């Protein structure tokens, strides 16, 4: 009996995907790629280098990379414990807490900016005490990092929590009966096991931080070299110089693609878990 079906062919075997799914998938891909291509087509290549190497552009790029790196570190520091608690422990209101922790994912960034303003701003909940202590957060690079962390943290928490849940806790149980303290289990078993998930979460957080705009604009302000990140610079350039805006947009896309590409090449962004069940 020969199975007669053209749909769902793949190089290595049966994929089970009907042909029309491929058609819609292609439309979807075009929907994402076409605008990027259109933007590339609009680049003024003659002026490209001078545009992206202007002092303002380089300042913005460097600031973006610095702040995104800092916020990624902050996301890891805060997000790993959050993900572990959400994935492993049970307590009343946990589901609610989880939804709230992931709120920035669906919140318009401007709303995040306003919320941060009323927290860390001069007259904010914490800001007014920080002000007494001589610490000013608004209009500082710190504010940029806080805004980026606020919007990027859920990405890390979500992807790591998924990884922790998938990994299960059997390895941890074995480690504990072998005499490992909970901190040792975390350091030597749990974290190494979910490293791929952690890494892809960190990459996502970095990418999200890089693209942060709304919360930064609302909360941190916009000053060259201090708070004006690449997206803010693009937004500003767009007012007067479309060529510069397009050129900088391309730089931002290139940086994002490079980050994602690097993570895939090193195998950390693909969610691969080797030897999950070494039996």
């Amino acid at each position, binding site marked *: 009996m020969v*199975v007669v079906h053209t749909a769902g062919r793949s190089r290595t075997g049966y994929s089970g995907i009907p*042909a029309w799914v491929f058609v819609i998938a292609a439309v979807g891909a075009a929907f994402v790629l076409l605008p990027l291509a259109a933007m590339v087509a609009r680049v003024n290549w003659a002026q490209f280098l001078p545009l992206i190497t202007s002092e303002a552009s380089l300042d913005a790029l460097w600031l973006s990379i610095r702040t995104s790196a800092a916020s990624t570190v902050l996301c890891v520091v805060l997000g790993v414990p959050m993900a572990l608690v959400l994935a492993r422990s049970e307590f009343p209101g946990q589901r609610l807490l989880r939804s709230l922790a992931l709120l920035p994912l669906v919140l318009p960034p401007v709303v995040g900016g306003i919320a941060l*303003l009323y927290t860390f701003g001069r007259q904010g909940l914490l800001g007014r005490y920080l002000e007494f202590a001589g610490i000013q957060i608004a209009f500082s690079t710190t504010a940029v990092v806080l805004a980026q962390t606020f919007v990027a943290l859920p990405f890390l928490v979500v992807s790591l929590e998924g990884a922790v849940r998938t990994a299960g806790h059997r390895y941890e149980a074995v480690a504990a009966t072998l005499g490992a303290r909970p901190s040792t289990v975390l350091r030597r078993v749990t974290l190494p096991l979910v490293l791929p998930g952690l890494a892809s979460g960190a990459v996502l957080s970095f990418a999200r931080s890089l693209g942060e705009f709304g919360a930064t604009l609302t909360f941190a*302000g*916009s*000053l060259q070299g201090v708070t004006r990140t690449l997206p803010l610079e693009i937004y*500003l*350039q767009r*007012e*007067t110089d479309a060529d510069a805006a397009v050129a900088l947009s391309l730089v931002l896309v290139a940086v994002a693609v490079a980050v994602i590409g690097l993570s895939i090449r090193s195998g950390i962004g693909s969610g691969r878990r080797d030897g999950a069940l070494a039996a």
Partner: protein
Amino acid sequence: MIFASRKPAARRPFRAARLSAVVGVLAITTAALAGCAGAQSSGTASGSSTGQLSGTVTVFAAASLKASFTEIASKFEAANPGTKVKLSFAGSSDLVTQLTQGAPADVFASADTTNMKKLTDASLAEGQPVNFATNVLTIAVPPSNTAGVSGFRDLAKPGVRLVVCAPKVPCGAATQSVAKSTGTTLAPVSEESSVTDVLGKVSSGEADAGLVYVTDVKSAGDKVKGIAFPESSNAVNTYPIVALRASKNKDAAKAFIAMVTGSEGRQVLQSAGFGVP
């Protein structure tokens, strides 16, 4: 590869039908989206050259004109039964970009001459733009005015957290020329992309002072306090208005412009804080 063998020909038309159904759905979706866009156009308008005005007038106006133009529009509709004014407010440069990309509109009112020039340079304007309002900078401070700002020079005092518009945007350019004319060096903590952002930072108390337009302070109510300063006359912002060549309802467009520049319009603009020529 037994799994990859061709499907019998008899089944192919069936599959083709299903595919075309999918394509059909996509086409309908696209058409529906296009329909949404079409609804915004002024294409439905018609006005006889001699008779009464009718149809829709689509007005693209600078964001700072929002309150005034909304009021003028309702006056216009009341005076010309059968007409409908559609208003679209955004930054002047955004609007010009949209218009050069072919957005359908009948009237364009800019917050500065620079953006209007972009429009006329692109030969999109019908006739010469008319200046209908002016706006000057003013100092906005939080109601408490904790930094004790009383004049333009106070803005340069150390410890005063000043927020201004970036030099690239019109209000920032005006700020720069005032600073230059007075020989003051400003050290802002932030250079925002729009007046709204400056105002937001002042009204939230993050900034001690900001430089915005008189009309912005007025529309912000009691959330901020305005401090006028004489040096502002060094940078007067002029608002031009013009009908668009692509307009399909030019009579109504011209009538709307006439109302804006006429006594009724001047009155509304003045009460909003604008200067009128």
